């Protein structure tokens, strides 16, 4: 068992890196780690490097696995299930299917014209950005495995319930008609060679780093500010555990924002270290990733405003409930 703890500490938490950076800050920059400047510089350098390393390794591994689950295969698998089972599989597959947000329209149309209920498609669309295998492992590295697993379970449940409610609410009339106008013959599922998969995974790493590096630098910067500069009373006043509005506030602030989940993790980490409730921090993360203005604009091309509003409403309320629940039971995790 000790070996697992050691692996966790060195591979995920990267204690060796923290120690190295501490040496750098103390001996090269000549700063006291206990001071605001020294502490925040240590936090910044260590967190940025840690996230980039984990990012590269995780994205590569997970993209490789994801190359076995193209949307065409997912659609084929989902066609075999009915009712809530379909929602459950849809939410689970959403976590492992590679998914560029610009594909959300073709994917929505593809699933719907194959006869999958829109609720099943929405379960997929909720779980996909929310539960991302790479960020789950990152969560485990920043917090711990219990929280990471709980996050996955809760995210999948939210996706299943959200999709089921939509399925049962007779909202098909709010889908743009042209979505149904396509016939849904099965297409050939492309077979990739190992070389193709390696290329795909490597390109995904390069692509994603190109897309998110700025979010990470900014996110860690904000995290460092929270960690070392923003006084405790201010954070308590806005997001403190005893404030009834903190989860709702964190969620509402996160909804219109678009940032990659990797950028929000250091912020969540810093907030929790400063005493903000675990649920409040998670609610913020989920709101930022599950809902965003760009994805809502994209979706509005295929569904009418009323259905879009229902979708946003269900997910928001779900996130708020999850936030309060985690705050109440966080003693189990930390």
């Amino acid at each position, binding site marked *: 068992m000790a070996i697992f703890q050691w692996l966790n500490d060195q591979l995920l938490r990267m204690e060796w890196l923290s120690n190295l950076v501490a040496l750098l800050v103390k001996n090269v920059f000549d700063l006291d780690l206990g001071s605001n400047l020294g502490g925040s510089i240590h936090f910044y350098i260590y967190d940025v490097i840690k996230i980039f390393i984990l990012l590269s390794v995780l994205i590569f591994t997970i993209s490789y696995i994801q190359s076995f689950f193209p949307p065409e295969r997912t659609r084929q698998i989902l066609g075999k299930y009915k009712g809530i089972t379909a929602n459950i599989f849809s939410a689970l597959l959403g976590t492992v299917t590679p998914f560029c947000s610009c594909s959300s329209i073709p994917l929505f*149309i593809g699933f719907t014209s194959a006869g999958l209920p829109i609720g099943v498609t929405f379960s997929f669309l909720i779980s996909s950005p929310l539960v991302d295998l790479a960020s789950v492992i990152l969560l485990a590295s920043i917090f711990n495995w219990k929280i990471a697993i709980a996050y996955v379970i809760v995210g999948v449940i939210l996706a299943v319930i959200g999709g089921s409610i939509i399925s049962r609410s007779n909202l098909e009339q709010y889908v743009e008609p042209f979505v149904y106008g*396509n016939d849904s013959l099965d297409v050939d599922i492309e077979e990739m060679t190992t070389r193709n998969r390696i*290329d795909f995974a490597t390109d995904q790493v390069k692509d994603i780093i190109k897309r998110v590096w700025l979010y990470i630098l900014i996110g860690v910067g904000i995290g460092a500010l929270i960690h070392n500069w923003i006084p405790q009373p201010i954070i308590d006043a806005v997001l403190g555990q005893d404030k009834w509005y903190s989860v709702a506030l964190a969620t509402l602030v996160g909804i219109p924002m678009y940032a990659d989940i990797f950028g929000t993790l250091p912020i969540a980490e810093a907030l929790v270290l400063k005493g903000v409730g675990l649920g409040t921090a998670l609610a913020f993360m989920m709101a930022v990733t599950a809902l965003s203005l760009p994805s809502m604009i994209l979706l509005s091309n295929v569904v009418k405003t009323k259905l879009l509003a229902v979708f946003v409403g269900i997910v928001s309320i779900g996130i708020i409930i999850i936030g309060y629940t985690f705050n109440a039971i966080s003693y189990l995790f930390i």
Partner: protein
Amino acid sequence: MVEIKVLGTGCAKCKQLEKDVFNALAELDLAADVEKVQDIKKIMSYKVMSTPALVVNGKVKVAGRVPRADELKKLITEER
């Protein structure tokens, strides 16, 4: 002449594929009729579920990713 369509709604990967196609054609010294399809209804007629996608002489060769140069050249030439 080879007929190539690049399907995509305008994100960075879709533009990348279009650029790569032109590069591949230059390296192959091949003339082709290249069209970028951004209209969602037209994209759907090819039954692809993820973009960007590459269609050569009417057949969908790849969808959801940008193939590397070697693979791209192979995909373009094998449909003749």
